[in-house]
């Protein structure tokens, strides 16, 4: 089973990389960009019988740092 884990910074957590990218987009002349936040996507290939609980535990224990990040698990197949 293919699983996509989307990791994003929690709202309110300063994202200096996003801010720099935002600045660069403006420098390229793209107007109307209100905000940029950088996240991470992790593609997993796991056994078909992997439980939702196990996937959630992978996220909480390693893939995301829940102090600063939210995560979302998406099963692709």
């Amino acid at each position, binding site marked *: 089973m293919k699983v996509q884990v989307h990791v994003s910074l929690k709202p309110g*957590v*300063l994202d*200096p*990389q996003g801010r*720099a990218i935002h600045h660069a987009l403006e420098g390229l002349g793209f107007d109307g960009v209100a905000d940029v936040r950088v996240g991470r996507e992790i593609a997993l290939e796991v056994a078909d019988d992997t439980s939702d609980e196990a996937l959630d535990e992978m996220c909480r*224990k*390693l*893939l995301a*740092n829940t*102090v*600063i990040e939210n995560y979302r698990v998406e099963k692709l197949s």
Partner: protein
Amino acid sequence: MAFTAGVITFPGSNCDRDMAVAIEQVSGKAPLRIWHGDAELPDNIDFVAVPGGFSYGDYLRSGAMAANSPIMRSVIAAAERGVPVLGVCNGFQVLTEARLLPGALMRNAGIRFVCRTVPLVVENASSLFTQGYDKGQTIHIPVAHHDGNYFADEDVLARLEGEGRIAFRYGEAVNGSSCQIAGVLNEKGNVLGMMPHPERAIEPEQGSADGRALFQSVFEALAVA
């Protein structure tokens, strides 16, 4: 003064030797060098230092992989027994990822790697790591990091402040850290994480010897215990 210190080395650690030299200079006894793949710290360990560097190439998040390496289970157990644990720079990142300390270290607010000697204000001069300083004293210690921007939510910051667990604050803007936090203690006061490198400020030839008192404090506390 027959205590046993240990310095952990992960793949990508690069301040482990400096840490070992600093410990030997101050205590007179060379620390054990402990590899990340070792399953156990020695039973008689009295002090653990988690050094700076780029463990596992900062893959995933700084400190995230190292926090899950075999030796860290033993470091967490030692910290829970009350053994003093010092994490410097990447070591601080490892200790937050291992949840021995609250908060997280994020990318510097100015994006750039910061490498210079900075003023630090000693906020807590009664912990076993900081009793050699005076409260409010300004010391000078080098920083060298890309991810040193300390973040914790409002509740955690208020608790750290209220419980006197902010050990050091930057005396000038360095990396965007919440409340200018440079180093924090755990609840019991036996775990300290800090971004600045006290092990690089041991002899006047290094530009500052202000880091010496930190190691001295730990060894004096151990000698009394």
